């Protein structure tokens, strides 16, 4: 069965290509797909007739209990046959109806996709899979309704159908989840059915019932969600015939029938379904007479039929389910046929307005025959199949205890009005005098006759010989719905009884109504203002409200101001952890001691420098002052590092601070002064201050909370013990960087390389000119630099080399090397530095990264994990200890080169950038 659905989807995807190749023959060719599927499903008839069900499972997301499991019993088979059978006729018909349309390939795609989704829906055994198919039908029907998307109202109608059924779909999903909880955790329908009694008695029954029914009602256009269906008539007529009469709107009915055995029979079930069904029946029947558009009349009569089906399923006993299943088949035949007839009439005459049509039977005899047969079936007159269906429905309503007169009365009224509607769509256009129409009518082409005639003929055939309809099919469908074996006898003549009498009354009243239609329509038209205040108005208000809400929250949260985003982020980062910390304050901060006496004098000095420096940066109006204060903070932190046993950190920090000053100064003189810049005032400034202080307080509290937790030194101890033993290094920090955690370091130097290239591109895109000038500078600086650069480079190499055992390493060495070149550039200019360096700094980046990568590959070659250190021992002879050489050293050289390459790339990029006078200071903020 998964294959069947897969074939449908594959055919859908191939349809556009096929249409390009075959043009008008594509419809005939594609019709073979549903036809073959029809035959395939028909082969299951004997099995299902035995009362057996076929179950096939393909695991999908087994860890969540979601499988593509399919379950074929009588009910599923009935729907599958209807879907594929009607599908065949519709595809053929669409080929004629939309002949020459530019997007017909796309149309076939959506139609076949819909068919596959519908098949999946009626076959699925897993609730989640069922939901996915359910949403797929909504989605593909959106595409089909919106097929003529150039028209604004068409787009609105498609959106309305999608939103209403989509909302129902979400309710359905929630209902399914609750159902699964109530049923013991499984999503398989076949397993849930065994839990029916548990589910009906479960505390969640009412919520899950309400949600599932909400989903079904939106899909099947029950009051008050009926309004989307007439609007969906904006779709091309074959779509209306297929989706909005025979299949998609029946998906809700299918699901109600499917759940009848599991959820049905309770007071809530009977009352909700029968009341909604009865109201829908009446409303649809009345409104059908208000309209003169053939498709609108048919759409409202479809609502009547859907109401009837809901009512019958709601009554939930044997006779009513029998009637529902038979009426479902009846309705699919005649409504499909009549929609197709309406399409043909529209196609041939150019209008669907009943008032402008008449006497078409003379020019379109075959179409008229189909219309006549389908119309008789719709009116429920013998010897058509519709009569059988209506008799059964009357019998069911008469047989239900507890509603005495109400049910039969409602049914008679609705059916009488349906008889009148049948007259409107059949007698008016096809009988009487031939009228002039926008186009001169001819008989429709063969492709557009097959569908109407086939469906209408089926109604006649099964009416005359109800026994021909596989008794087993109807029987097993009823059995599957009710859950216990049912025998069923269908016949045209049940003898003289109350139901027959009601039929006679119905027909008489219907004919009378039809004869007085003009007066009835006038009366209904005067009530138009009332309909305009109906549920559709609620939809419009809700939709507008939703849009306004979205607009409002967008303006609040997504207003385009970066600073506003940042404020929201900071505020949340302050408030959420802040509240959590506050709630657990007693436990978290019990151990915090204020032993100020322990703090040493020089620690106080550093603290004062850091606090003072921070405040100065915040308050500074001069950029140079701010840079100087930043330096104070940075160097003080570096001194703290030394004091607290972290010489590597201190060295790194010192060097970085120095280089940052160089880079900042390079940028500074290219940017306008800060003092000229507008500053925040008043409330905004206070808000920023509050946020900032809050953020600081939360971080301090977090730090104290972490410190209050007992320390687990496991990882640190491991590194300390293994440093010499397995990595031959005595500087544990460096060993961690180049050996234990080398992959992290590799990632970090990659980031540096990317940042450097990014900076290079930023300056070079937009063709800023090369600036090749060198100017004489201070003689003292130049002379000193000549010595210094050699010393600095030597020092950097020395630190690189000894880093594995003493403070130093690739990062520190690299930063010193970068500083050396920067100094040289300051003294002699960049061009001269370039000559000393000989290669582009970007080459250093690449070589460095490559070295680091290659150093890791040795381990792979040795069959170990990437970046595991590989060592060789070089004997030095004599008393000297043998020299250990390893890939971590190579890795560190890579780090060294990347750091130098990064710094020099940035310096070069900035140096080549033109000064502010050259920048287009066009539209400064005013």
């Amino acid at each position, binding site marked *: 069965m998964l294959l069947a659905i897969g074939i449908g989807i594959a055919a859908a995807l191939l349809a556009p290509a096929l249409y390009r190749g075959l043009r008008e023959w594509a419809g005939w060719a594609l019709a073979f797909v549903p036809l073959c599927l029809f035959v395939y499903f028909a082969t299951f008839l004997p099995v299902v007739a035995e009362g057996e069900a076929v179950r096939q499972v393909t695991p999908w997301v087994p860890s969540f209990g979601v499988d593509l499991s399919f379950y074929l019993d009588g009910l599923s088979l009935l729907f599958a046959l209807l879907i594929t059978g009607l599908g065949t006729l519709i595809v053929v018909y669409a080929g004629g109806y939309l002949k020459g349309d530019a997007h017909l390939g796309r149309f076939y795609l959506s139609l076949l996709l819909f068919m596959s989704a519908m098949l999946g829906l009626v076959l699925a055994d897993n609730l989640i899979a069922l939901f996915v198919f359910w949403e797929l039908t909504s989605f593909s029907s959106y595409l089909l309704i919106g097929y003529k998307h150039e028209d604004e109202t068409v787009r609105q109608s498609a959106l309305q159908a999608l939103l209403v059924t989509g909302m129902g779909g979400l309710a359905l999903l929630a209902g399914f989840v609750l159902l699964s909880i109530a049923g013991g955790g499984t999503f398989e329908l076949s397993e849930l059915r065994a839990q029916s009694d548990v589910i009906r008695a479960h505390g969640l029954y009412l919520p899950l019932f309400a949600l599932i029914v909400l989903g079904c009602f939106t899909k099947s256009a029950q009051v008050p969600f009926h309004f989307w269906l007439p609007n969906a008539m904006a779709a091309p007529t074959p779509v209306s015939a297929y989706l909005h009469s025979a299949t998609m709107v029946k998906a809700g009915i299918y699901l109600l029938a499917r759940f009848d055995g599991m959820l049905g029979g309770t007071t809530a079930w009977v009352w909700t379904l029968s009341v909604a069904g009865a109201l829908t029946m009446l409303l649809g029947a009345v409104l059908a007479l208000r309209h003169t558009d053939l498709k609108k009349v048919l759409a409202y009569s479809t609502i009547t039929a859907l109401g009837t089906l809901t009512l019958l399923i709601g009554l939930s006993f044997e006779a009513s389910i029998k009637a529902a299943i038979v009426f479902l088949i009846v309705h699919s035949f005649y409504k499909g046929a009549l929609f197709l007839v309406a399409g043909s009439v529209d196609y041939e005459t150019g209008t669907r307005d009943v008032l402008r049509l008449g006497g078409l039977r003379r020019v379109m005899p075959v179409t008229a025959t189909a219309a006549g047969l389908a119309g008789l079936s719709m009116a429920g007159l013998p010897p058509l199949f519709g009569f059988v269906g209506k008799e059964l429905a009357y019998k069911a309503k008469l047989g239900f205890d507890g509603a005495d007169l109400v049910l039969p009365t409602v049914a008679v009224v609705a059916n009488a009005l349906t008889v009148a509607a049948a007259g409107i769509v059949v007698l008016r256009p096809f009988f009487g005098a031939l009228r002039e129409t926008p186009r001169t009518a001819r008989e429709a082409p063969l492709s557009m006759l097959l569908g109407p005639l086939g469906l209408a003929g089926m109604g006649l055939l099964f009416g005359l010989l109800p026994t021909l309809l596989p008794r087993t099919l109807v029987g097993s469908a009823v059995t599957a719905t009710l859950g216990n074996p049912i025998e069923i006898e269908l016949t045209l003549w049940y003898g003289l009884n109350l139901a027959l009498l009601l039929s006679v009354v119905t027909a008489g009243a219907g004919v009378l109504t039809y004869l007085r239609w003009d007066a009835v329509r006038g009366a209904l038209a005067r009530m138009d203002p009332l309909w305009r205040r109906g549920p559709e108005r609620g939809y419009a208000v809700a939709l507008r409200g939703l849009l306004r809400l979205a607009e409002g929250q967008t303006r609040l949260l997504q207003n385009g101001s970066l600073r506003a985003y940042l404020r929201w982020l900071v505020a949340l980062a302050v408030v959420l952890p802040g509240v959590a910390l506050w709630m657990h304050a007693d436990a978290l901060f019990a151990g*915090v001691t204020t032993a100020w006496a322990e703090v040493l004098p020089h620690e106080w000095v550093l603290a004062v420098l850091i606090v003072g420096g921070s405040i100065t940066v915040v308050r500074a109006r001069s950029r140079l002052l701010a840079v100087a204060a930043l330096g104070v903070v940075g160097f003080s932190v570096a001194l703290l590092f030394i004091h607290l046993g972290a010489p590597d950190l201190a060295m790194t920090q010192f060097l970085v601070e120095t280089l940052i000053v160089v880079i900042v100064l390079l940028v500074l003189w290219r*940017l306008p002064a800060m003092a000229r810049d507008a500053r925040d005032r008043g409330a905004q400034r206070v808000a920023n201050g509050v946020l900032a202080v809050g953020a600081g307080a939360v971080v301090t509290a977090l730090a104290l909370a972490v410190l209050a937790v007992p320390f687990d030194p496991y990882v640190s101890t491991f590194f*300390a013990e293994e440093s010499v033993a397995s990595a031959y290094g*005595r500087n544990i920090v460096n060993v961690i960087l180049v050996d234990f955690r080398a992959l992290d370091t590799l990632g970090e130097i990659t980031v540096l390389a990317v940042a450097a290239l990014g900076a290079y591109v930023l300056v070079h895109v*937009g063709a800023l000119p090369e600036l090749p000038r060198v100017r004489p500078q201070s003689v003292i600086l130049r002379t000193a630099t000549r010595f210094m650069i050699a010393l600095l480079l030597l020092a950097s190499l020395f630190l690189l080399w000894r880093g594995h055992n003493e403070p130093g390493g690739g990062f520190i060495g690299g930063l010193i090397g970068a500083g050396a070149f920067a100094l040289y550039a300051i003294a002699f200019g960049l061009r001269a530095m370039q000559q000393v360096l000989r290669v582009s700094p970007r080459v250093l980046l690449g070589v460095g990264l490559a070295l680091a990568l290659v150093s890791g590959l040795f381990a792979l070659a040795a069959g170990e994990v990437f970046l595991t250190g590989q060592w060789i021992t070089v004997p030095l002879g004599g008393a000297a200890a043998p020299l250990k050489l390893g890939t971590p050293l190579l890795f560190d050289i890579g780090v060294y080169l990347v750091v130098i390459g990064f710094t020099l790339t940035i310096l070069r990029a900035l140096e080549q950038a033109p000064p502010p006078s050259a*920048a287009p200071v066009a539209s*400064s*903020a005013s």
Partner: protein
Amino acid sequence: MHLLLALLVGVLFAAGVYLILQRHLLRIIFGLILLGNAVNLLVFTVGRAARLAPPLIPEGMTVPPEVTANPLPQALVLTAIVISFGLVAFALVLAYRAYATLGTTDTDALENDAPSPADLATNGRAPADEDAAEASPSSPDPVPSDDLAR
């Protein structure tokens, strides 16, 4: 001692956050620098910073002799220092480029070049001249530049 360090982290954080909420690009970058210091100090502190010997193993021994400082946060912070250096350097070039292209360092003024939410809300799409706003900057005339020392 830990309390003092935690308070210092808080001060650095507050100053950094205040600065990144400012309008001038340079002040935002200064904020980034302070935030970098704050985070480094935070990691270092919660790694149980204490007045201890550096995590070095003397020649001839295979494990550290006595209690040494925790090496793990040091390794983390060392790379973090270099990474924040990279971030700040890149941000500075970016600030320069933004100024060269747009002629302003005011973040509030930068926003004006993007379609406003009001435009988005009224007709559901950006204004028609959106592409025009993205027009590339006119290349400035070649101007003799000075080198690093200036």
